[in-house]
């Protein structure tokens, strides 16, 4: 290696470092996704089941999943509820504040499609009317087991 051209050495070594770092970051992202939750108009059913994920029975923290308070710290945006007109801009702003790469998960039937409120005069529909959605987990409300299943599949996709 030391006898080869120094530029080539530097480049190869730099690439190896970068690949290792990339790998480490990907592993960390996959092993420890930080989640931000936003309710854009839902009844709370899915929200309390999301909160349930943190409590002793389901305890997703042991899987590395942490619930974050700021969009700037989050990898995954968990959306619940249909998107109401008033929430649309806030939802978009939260998404824009999340650093890339970021993923959006629509939790619950309302978030997937508008649910029972589909034709409400103040309802735009599901989250995909406003943001690009990576994973749909339906249910009314969505069960914690289904959420964990959906999140694990998302993490596999990320890898």
């Amino acid at each position, binding site marked *: 290696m030391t006898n080869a051209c120094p530029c080539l050495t530097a480049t190869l070594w730099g690439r190896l470092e970068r690949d290792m770092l990339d790998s480490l970051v990907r592993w960390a992202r996959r092993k420890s996704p930080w989640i931000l939750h936003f*309710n854009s108009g839902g009844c709370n*059913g899915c929200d309390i089941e999301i909160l349930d994920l943190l*409590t002793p*029975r389901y305890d997703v923290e042991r899987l590395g999943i942490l619930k974050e308070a700021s969009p700037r710290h989050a990898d995954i945006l968990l959306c619940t509820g249909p998107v109401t007109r008033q*929430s649309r801009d806030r939802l978009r702003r939260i998404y824009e504040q999340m650093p890339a790469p970021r993923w959006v998960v629509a939790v619950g039937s309302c978030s997937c499609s508008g649910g029972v409120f589909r034709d409400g005069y103040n309802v735009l529909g599901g989250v995909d009317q406003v943001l690009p959605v990576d994973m749909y987990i339906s249910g*009314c*409300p969505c069960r914690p087991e289904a959420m964990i299943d959906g999140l694990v599949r998302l993490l596999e996709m990320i890898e």
Partner: protein
Amino acid sequence: MTRMTIPIGPQHPALKEPLSFLLTVEGERIVESVLRMGYVHRGIERICQNRNYVQNVHVVERVCGICSHIHTTTYCQGVEALLGLEVPPRALCLRTLLCELERIHSHLLWMGVLAELIGFTTIFMYAWRDREIVLDIMEELSGGRVAHAVNVIGGVRIDLDAEMSHSILVRLDELERQIETLLGVIQHERTFRARTRGVGHLSAEQVRRYCVVGPTARASGVDVDLRRDAPYAAYDQLDFRVITAEEGDVWARTMVRLLETIESLHLCRQLLAELPQGALTVRAPRRVPPGEVVSRGEAPRGELVYYIRSDGSDKPARVKIRTPTLTTLITLPDQLRDVNTADVPAVLAGVDLCIACADR
């Protein structure tokens, strides 16, 4: 001192649901606050006019995920009154059982949320772990942890046998032990008392002026409870205390709700012990004769009012829903005045807000 305006929400760690505040502060003290609702406004009252009475049972169940059963109970009671139906006694008792189980789950949920916002995460974990006992019972009875779909117009669609009844009683005993432990910890925990005593005070006069209902009103000494004052479902046959307190602060509201939870456990035991035999539903016609009804129920957060007008078709001409949280939201500017910014989460959590209910 200069004044500053701080926006809080709609997305904020202190808020479980989207709600927006503009707080005007002088140093650490709040001088004025302005509220902005409507982020969760789905236009449910209009949606109800586009659906028939049966479909609306499922729509009103989703006004709020926490108190879904009392919404369907109050709605079905109203429609049954318009139809002139007499719901069988067994169905009324089962309805009431779910009402009380829901009250327990809602108060434990609130206890956890308040504790978490104050920084007492251990109580949040314990309260929500104990709440799982109630959710399991509701799931075994109805198939759903959160949305139960127990009520139909004319009765209920669930039933239980002696074995299930015994199993529920055993678990309620366990739950009572856990809640007594929780109560003991909270009563003796000095930091909890320091964070909640004197915070978010509402006098009895303020409660009357703003027409506040529920545990928030009872914690300020106003003795109102629809279960006793205007019994519905099976409450006229049951024996229970209405819990009140005098201090009117977050501490008083905590005590009222925890003691109410224990009363609800006693109510569940009475219902299971005295469950009458008989049918679970009566047949309900699809078309409702023209008429009007005002139906009321005591939700975990207080008086829930439904006004329904029928025009003779299978769809209601008007469904008006007034939820209890609306009565407490209006008091927030008063409660937040002269409060330190650090106490804002405790005040917001203390009134048990359910924005989904308020916005509809």
